[in-house]
């Protein structure tokens, strides 16, 4: 029946079947591929990890503790007055990722940070680097200040502040 296909302007039975088969096939392939791709995302048990509470009463001024939260270290630091004033008086124009100190803390004495360098994920070392009361990442040389903001080195953004709230004067809840 070749004469049926000569009229290319008209949509014919074969065109319909081609489009319909392709469409159904694409949906079918997608339905098979998606579970195979999505199984690699964090599973229900990982997502269900409860939030944790951190007791602050034993941390002295200038001290810092590290807690493990969702597989990552979280720094909880009780800053000294000098560290707070240093962090507050920085000119925002100097910063790579400008953010005032008061946007990064709930109480200026307590700095809570995800202890993961925003460059390639190493754990920065406390009290090292060119900024007093800050952090230094040993992997690729990023320097963070006493507010956890990136000041020098390859990291693109400031250390992340996790979701947390004060559930009492000396206790925070992470997550």
């Amino acid at each position, binding site marked *: 029946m070749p004469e049926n296909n000569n009229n290319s302007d008209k949509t014919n039975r074969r065109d319909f079947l081609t489009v319909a088969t392709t469409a159904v096939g694409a949906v079918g392939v997608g339905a098979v591929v998606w579970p195979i791709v999505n199984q690699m995302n964090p599973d229900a048990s*990982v997502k269900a990890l409860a939030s944790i509470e951190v007791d602050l009463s034993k941390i002295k001024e200038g001290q810092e503790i590290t807690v493990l939260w969702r597989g990552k270290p979280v720094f909880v630091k009780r800053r000294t007055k000098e560290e707070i004033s240093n962090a507050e008086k920085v000119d925002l124009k100097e910063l790579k990722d400008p953010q005032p100190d008061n946007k990064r803390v709930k109480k200026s004495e307590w700095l809570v940070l995800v202890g993961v360098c925003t460059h390639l994920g190493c754990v920065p070392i406390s009290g090292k680097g060119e900024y007093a009361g800050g952090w230094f990442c040993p992997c690729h040389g990023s320097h963070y200040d006493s507010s956890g903001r990136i000041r020098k080195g*390859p990291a693109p953004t400031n250390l992340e502040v996790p979701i947390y709230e004060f559930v009492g004067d000396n206790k925070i809840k992470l997550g």
Partner: protein
Amino acid sequence: MSDKNLENTNTEYKPVHTNKVGGSPFKGVTGWIDNRLPIFRMFKYEYLDFQVPKNLSYLWSLGGILMICLIFLIVTGLVLGMHYKPSSSEAFESVEKIMRDVNFGWLIRYMHMNFASFFFIAVYIHIFRGLYYGSYKEPRQLMWLIGIVIFFLMMATAFLGYTLPWGQMSYWGATVITNLFSAVPFVGESIVTWLWGDYAVGDATLNRFYVLHWLIAFGILGIVIFHVIALHIVGSNNPSGIEPKDTRDTVSFAPFTTSKDLFAMLIFLFAFVIITMYAPNYLGHPDNYIPADPLVTPAHIVPEWYFLPFYAILRSIPDKLMGVIAMVSSIAILGLLPWLDLSKIRSSVFRPIWKQFVFLFVLDFFILMYVGGMPAEGIYLLIGRVGTAYWFLFFLIIAPLVSLIEKPLPMPNSIHEFEQWKKLGKIKTFKLF
């Protein structure tokens, strides 16, 4: 259709041959099998009678050596897999169990570790050979590209394998390398979480890395077969870069090339045994014998020695995304070389200017390797930046420019004439031994 239509069709029928049995040069049982499955004749034509240039140096033995490395890696990996447990709570201890309790476990693991390193030693010499003698040029461009794919896969599987012992370097190496994907705009973080199966490198990550380590290892084997098939179509290059013309220029693969390759393999394996027996951890890092700790990053985190030049390129760019792009392109750019080097002359023997830049490139490779192992500060950062600049200049500017302005040395007409010129001292060649 009616009968009438059938009668009217004026068709000439072409014969079909669905049955291709026959044509074997062998007799008896071998011939019977070969007529039905032509593996014996393939072996005869491609490995016994196969003609190769008669002037191949030991640098052409690296292909065979790499094949031996790959086979040893697969065999030792297979048996290690029978004792290893890919879970974050058991991995480190199961590796220690292999080292202490499993019969010859220490030997098998040290062999697997050091064959990975020696695989890279051999592949770097192999790539240098291609670079120096212009093996990437017409008609071997596709073979060169397949080779670069193999190199990428080698790096991937080496990285995944290094994660498996779950020591400190395993853990933090995995963290840093997977975080490279977070440089991708917008979807970077989601990609990294997807790769991890968690919000940090963890149990799910280790388990899938184990599977992928196997998968890619066999993927390499498959693509190596393509590399070799392509080689048997385009034929081997040689130190003169001149294609063989008649039997004065070639020898049979067996016994000439096979015996030469065998000798080279013995030398290579000798070096391998010395390292494996006397300094099995020399090429590794002591921190990897500390169990993985997600709270503490080692003070000096360095990748395996074979990644150092590319790690130096990553670190010499102060921007995260650009650093990652520079690192990946520093390898991918090798694939453009057949189209950047416009000279028709393959061998550097006849290219006095290009030759100098190739040696400078090799020096740059070692300098970057040294810098990659040093802290990312001060003078090392500066040297790393100069080295990175030369790496890209070499491909993008020097290769096309030199090929346009260089005046090549006079060339012989054939391989056997090339050999005569060498004896007469008219050509100076690069000699390995």
